[in-house]
């Protein structure tokens, strides 16, 4: 059945006999190889046997694979009674030093970030009003830590709350030229992200991250985070 696939293998299996003839792997061996490669965790002999053609000698296949891969950059190892491919241990120093996996933002943090982007300059109370829940200080702290959100200034209202805005790093990360390029209401609708009847007067603001302070913003004291004012 296996229809001839269009995937572009760099080198199609050559069907002519070659000096490697003796090495052409059996169907069971190829499948075992693919299963071990594709498994998210080491596979036990029983798990392998369940997916291989009936009557396959798992031990023999594993021994053959191990021998075949022995000189190579990846090898077959047996861990906790199961089999897995691993990079060869002697390559570890050359392989280490990978950057850690990027951390995904929580939904709360992502929503908070989106509000800061669209509604900046915005205070924490305003973010909470839009989200309808109190924003944990953690979300904002995390966003400050990402370097995508910054303290802009203080709103000239009682309590003088801090205003938040986005940074150039935010634009970089999300591939935006300017926050003004964030889609407006019509485009959000066009994308199918906002559907249904909206109340009259529902607006999506035209965002701006102009660093110049607004008329109702005061500058932050120079020393806001550098010791006593």
């Amino acid at each position, binding site marked *: 059945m296996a229809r001839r696939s269009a995937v572009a293998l760099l080198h199609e299996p050559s069907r002519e006999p070659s000096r490697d003839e003796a090495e052409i792997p059996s169907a069971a061996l190829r499948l075992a190889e693919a299963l071990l490669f*594709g498994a998210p*965790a080491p596979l036990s002999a029983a798990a392998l046997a369940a997916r291989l053609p009936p009557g396959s000698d798992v031990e023999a296949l594993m021994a053959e694979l191990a021998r075949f891969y022995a000189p190579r950059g990846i090898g077959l190892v047996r861990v*906790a009674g199961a089999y897995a491919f691993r990079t060869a241990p002697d390559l570890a120093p050359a392989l280490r030093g990978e950057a850690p996996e990027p951390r995904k933002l929580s939904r709360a943090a992502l929503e908070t*970030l989106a509000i800061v982007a669209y509604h900046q300059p915005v205070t924490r109370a305003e973010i909470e009003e839009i989200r309808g829940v109190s924003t944990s200080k953690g979300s904002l702290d995390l966003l400050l830590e990402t370097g995508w959100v910054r303290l802009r200034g203080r709103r000239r209202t009682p309590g003088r709350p801090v205003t938040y805005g986005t940074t150039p790093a935010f634009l970089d990360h999300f591939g935006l030229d300017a926050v003004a390029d964030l*889609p407006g209401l019509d485009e959000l609708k066009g994308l199918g992200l906002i559907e249904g009847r909206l109340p009259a007067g529902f607006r999506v603001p035209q965002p701006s991250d102009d660093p110049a302070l607004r008329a109702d913003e005061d500058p932050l004291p120079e020393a806001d985070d550098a010791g006593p004012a």
Partner: protein
Amino acid sequence: MAQPVAFDEGAPDAEAEPAFTVDVDGFEGPLDLLLALARRQKVDLARISILALVEQYLAFIEEARRLRLELAADYLVMAAWLAYLKSRLLLPEPPRGPEPAADDLVGALALRLRRLGAIRAAAAMLEGRARLGRDVFARGAVPGLDTAPGRGAAAETRPGPGPFAGTIHDLLAAYAGQRRRGARAPVSLAPRAVWSVVEARAALERMIGPRDDWTALDVYLAPYLADPGRRATVRASALSAILELAREGRVALRQERPFARISVRGLEG
């Protein structure tokens, strides 16, 4: 999984007739219907007879109306345009007119049909490719092989501190989602802040010393009157509390005339 795409036709109850089946339900709009009709001519799309196609379309629409099927407006718009095209094709070409030549209209329609047909074919070719996650698999990505719980890929890669990830789609979806929720949220009124009589009494007892001379009540209340939204509750509760203190002989009150300011003096007690 819900069908993510809404079809814009609304005629689910098409009656099937053996000879001539009118069923708009399977079509995605008039262009799709035209393409299907064109395919029935069983010739290369580049050589279809547009006139025959127009007549088939109009007959189809006529039949649908006879059966009282509800047709989406764009089918009727297309029918009107095709009827106009038919008249242009049948009548001799006017010597010169502001409209484009009938041949150009035919060419444009044929090209649109060929283009849609080509995209259909391309989509089918894409669909048929060996696709990641369906036909070929990346390391660790074959489904149904997670036989050793607790030792999955997640357990082996430690999520450490590092850079943060997020896509513009995540961002837009998060924003749109909450604005949409917010737009439908019921109106709720914030509870009004009330300064209770108990709070007022405690504050006044703390402030008014036994030897204080006559002092305007508002002076004591000044810190509480700063917030305009609370002035009424502060005044009312303070008056109740100060009257109670006067009744207990803790303070003396003085007011020169109605609505004049009230002065307070602490009494030894």
